[in-house]
């Protein structure tokens, strides 16, 4: 079934939605992924790219009590990660620690560091403090946003502050601003909302419907990228958030996730439900353009922003992660449980 792909594949046993780069692992390029199975026993896989970059090795396999909807690795401790899970009827979120005894047990139990159980609604995602060692976490459910203080040694987490977005907004995900640790973006039903964590109040919003994914440009301040159901990918400048700076066509069906490369400015990866991952290059000049120039013209002038389209997937691709250690490597996860690691090196000279 595999076409002429350069990607390295790895199959999970069940369906899966989320994959995360293990940022704290400085020795290897590793990813964490968790399965989404309603009826079977779910697993968390710790995958490591072999030093030659030709193989994907399962470094650890741990059972997880519930199906995993969201997974995020701790940015400062490679053994800690968070999951958002569902029992089918209710949702929960927890912080886990990978036990020391790697590979000895087939399916060792994960150590639960803390559970973020102040959640009332359907929790969507857990965000870690964007960089450095800080025990702050954010969790979002459909109506609320919580700021947690995690204490690993005491194995507890406390809510520092919370705010309600209101019934109507039904938050679905978000991103923590790497340039300003007090700012968090959350995607809602009809808008992208921005919160100031100091006051825990909503400060700004982009009125744009059906945003699925959101990511800050780690290289440039004020630049935000959103992925939408029907209308593709938009690049925004938060200082003038009324009109997008740039528009990328996105995917044939929904664009589910969008990720900015941590190292190469303007390199954007998007995953879609049309079973494809697209690599874009949104030229760096986009925000320096004169405001008089309409986005159409600027797009027209530019060469095709699509660098490559990886289409060797059997199902919708939901999970997407750049490696922070080797920033030209990314991992993608399609719904059928296939992890594919690709390198974008061949396209770097074109930037």
């Amino acid at each position, binding site marked *: 079934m595999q076409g002429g792909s350069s990607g390295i594949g790895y199959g999970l046993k069940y*369906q899966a939605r989320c994959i995360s780069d293990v940022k704290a692992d400085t020795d290897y390029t590793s990813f964490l992924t968790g399965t989404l199975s*309603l*009826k079977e026993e779910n697993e968390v896989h710790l995958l490591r790219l072999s030093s030659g970059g030709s193989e994907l090795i399962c470094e650890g396999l741990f059972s997880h009590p519930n199906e995993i909807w969201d997974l995020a690795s701790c940015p400062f401790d490679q053994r800690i990660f968070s999951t958002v899970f*569902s029992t*089918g*009827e209710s949702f929960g979120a927890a912080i886990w620690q990978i036990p020391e005894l790697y590979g000895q047990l087939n399916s060792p139990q994960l150590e639960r560091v803390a559970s973020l159980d102040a959640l009332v609604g359907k929790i969507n995602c857990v965000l870690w403090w964007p960089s450095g060692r800080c025990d702050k976490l954010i969790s979002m459910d459909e109506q609320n946003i919580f700021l947690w203080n995690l204490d690993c040694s005491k194995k507890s987490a406390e809510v520092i502050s919370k705010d309600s977005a209101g019934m109507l907004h*039904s938050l679905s995900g978000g991103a923590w601003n790497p340039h300003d640790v007090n700012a968090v973006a959350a995607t809602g039903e009809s808008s992208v909302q921005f919160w100031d964590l100091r006051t825990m109040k909503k400060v700004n919003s982009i*009125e*744009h419907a*059906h945003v699925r994914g959101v990511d800050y440009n780690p290289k440039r301040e004020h630049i935000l990228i959103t992925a939408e*159901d*029907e*209308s593709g990918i938009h690049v925004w400048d938060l200082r003038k*958030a*009324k*009109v*997008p700076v740039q528009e990328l066509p996105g995917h*044939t*069906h*929904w664009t589910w996730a969008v990720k900015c490369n941590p190292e190469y400015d303007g390199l954007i990866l998007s995953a879609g*439900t*049309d079973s494809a991952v697209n690599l874009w290059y949104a030229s760096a000049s986009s925000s320096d353009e004169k*405001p*008089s120039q*309409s*986005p*159409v013209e600027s797009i027209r002038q530019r060469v095709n922003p699509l660098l490559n389209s990886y289409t060797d997937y*059997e199902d*919708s691709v939901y999970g997407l992660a750049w490696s922070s250690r080797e920033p030209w490597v990314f991992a993608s996860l399609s*719904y059928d449980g296939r992890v594919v690691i690709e390198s974008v090196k061949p396209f770097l000279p074109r930037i």
Partner: protein
Amino acid sequence: MATEAAPMDEKAKRMRDLLSSFYAPDPSISTSGSSISASFDNINSTSFDADQYMDLMIKKSNLEVLLQRHVQMAAEIKNLDTDLQMLVYENYNKFISATDTIKRMKSNIFGMEGNMDQLLQKIMSVQSRSDGVNTSLFEKREHIEKLHRTRNLLRKVQFIYDLPARLQKCIKSETYGDAVRFYIGAMPILKVYGDTSFQDCRRASEEAIEIIIKNLQTKLFSDSESIQARAEAAVLLKQLDVPVDSLKDKLLEKLEQSLDGLQIKPEEASLLAEHNDSSNDAESNEQLPAKIHEDAVRGFSEAMRAYREIFPDSEERLFKLARALTAMHFENMELYIRKRVSAADFLRIFRIIWEDVVLMDEVLPEAELSDLSAEAAQVTVKKFVARTFSHLQQDISDTILKFDINQREAVEEEVLKVVLEASKKAGIQGTTDIFQDFRQLLDENIGIFVKMKDLIIGWIQNGFQDFFRSLEAQFLVLSGKTSSSKDIEGGLVEGKSSDKIHAGLILVLAQLSVFVEQKVIPRVSEEIAASFSGGNSQAFENGPAFIPGELCRVFHAASEKLLQHYIDTRTQKISVLLRKRFKTPNWVKHKEPREVHMYVDMFLHELEEVGKEVKQVLPQGTFRKHKRTDSNGSNTTTSSRSNTLHNDKMTRSNSQRARSQLFETHLAKLFKQKVEIFTKVEFTQESVVTTTVKLCLKSLQEYVRLQTFNRSGFQQIQLDIQFLKAPLKETVEDEAAIDFLLDEVIVAASERCLDVIPLEPPILDKLIQAKLAKSKEHNNNNNTVSS
């Protein structure tokens, strides 16, 4: 001779020296000439020392030499002696004769004094006599002189008394030149004595002169007089100190005022053009505005010619006037073409203006009117071309938007079709008209147009290029795909406007883009190649000329973009529907399915609408059951067959355990060809509908995947999907893909179900039948109501 002359000279010189030394008081001067070579041995020198000389001689010379010297010296002394004797003798002679003369003079002088006294007396008497004569004649002479003066005065007085009469005579004979000369001659006298003795006379002559001035003025103003005469009159008036400048100003002002009359006012222009038009039909109507205008301009130029001759110093002003008229003409022209004007009318007006310019140029060639007007004409023609294009674009967008207003109320009446046809027609008709117009422009053989031909062609080509580009941009703006530059500042405006835009309009625009790409642009490029080529070289310098290939690409891209946009807006609408459906209920606590959920109806209704719109606008594709490339066509059949097999299995095995069933589905999926869900959209009714359905079903699947279902929830989904199957297959060309997608939805639901037990087929059938019956009843009701 020289040797002979030298001693002669020597001798003479010596003589002269001797003489002069004899007479001269200062011997140094006399000897200065010979003492140049003075030394001891120079005897002639005053400082000559005979002893020293002697000593030197004795010391230096031998006896022989001394002897020789002695002889020589003796001879010289003898010589000198005789010379001196001669001199004395000669001088003595002279003394004697001088004394004689003096003696004689002395004797003659006696008696002279008496004669002299006598002479003096005589002269004195002569003088007194002449004085006497003079005094006796003086009075008479004085009298004569006085008489003469009086006579002159009298003559002048006579002249002045005669002046009025003479002037009258001159007036009668119209010899104003003489009259003016007379009058000016009499002027000084009249000035001095006019107030006293010649009062009447002066008054009379002034009256006469006034008449003359008046006559001259009328002559100057009258156009019937010859220019020569008028010029003379002007000169005479000037001589009479009549302020000619004010006259000139008055005249020129009059001319300026007449300029207003010469204007072709925009509102009149059309009239002018029309009348001109009608003149072709009815020649009897003599007093046509165009004719009048022409006469007026002719008069104007004649007047200018006259004034130029009369007032040579007023040239500048006339130039200014002529330029002003030309400028005004072109300004009015611009105003005129601001409204819609056909090329014929435009040309007619242009021709009139050009004729005017030519007329004026003849009179004032130095005013460089032709250059000025050529420039102005270029600008005007360029503007005209640009305006024509903008009118065309306006037309097209007007046609599109005209119908949009009533669209909401009357979707049924195939408005979209009407709009499409109308816009197509507007496009084709518009370009045809434009070509006709431009051809007229090119065929025009006014000098200026011939000159501008290349430029015009360049403009036209550029114009088309720009026109199509802006048309495309406008299409995109109309579709709401892009906000126009005006409301780029407000993103909210954009969002609202895109909501307001009717999806059907986008579809129309898409199809219109295709039409432009396939029909209009080739046609235009043909036309350009046929009759507007040649201007290329010039056009390329100014910018890109008409490049049909590029435009085709642009419109092709635009059409695809618009079609995609149409599908996007449509699926977006359905997506909202589905989102509401899946977000609202708690699927884990779903109740047993009782009927097909109503969102299915809404979904089908939306699809129906899409179908309707598509049918109005897009062509029907050649009906192909499977939308795949021919190479794997065989695969398609197998896949669809496996699908149907799988369907049979599904129905048969409904009673079996759900898990084994799922396993089978997975297995079936494994062996099935990966169905290409997302094929390229084509400009056919079927393709668009199919794509829309596919996208919606995919969305449905994704929504299902985000939920967790209990048994009843799953059964509800199963029921809904089962119901959808039949109507969807009817509307869609790619059954295999639809089957696959519907199955996928059920698979997704079963995967997300805690307790998968499908509905029994009889129950499923029953519920579907009930729904069908209900909808039929509903339809019947509707029909009865409507009938």
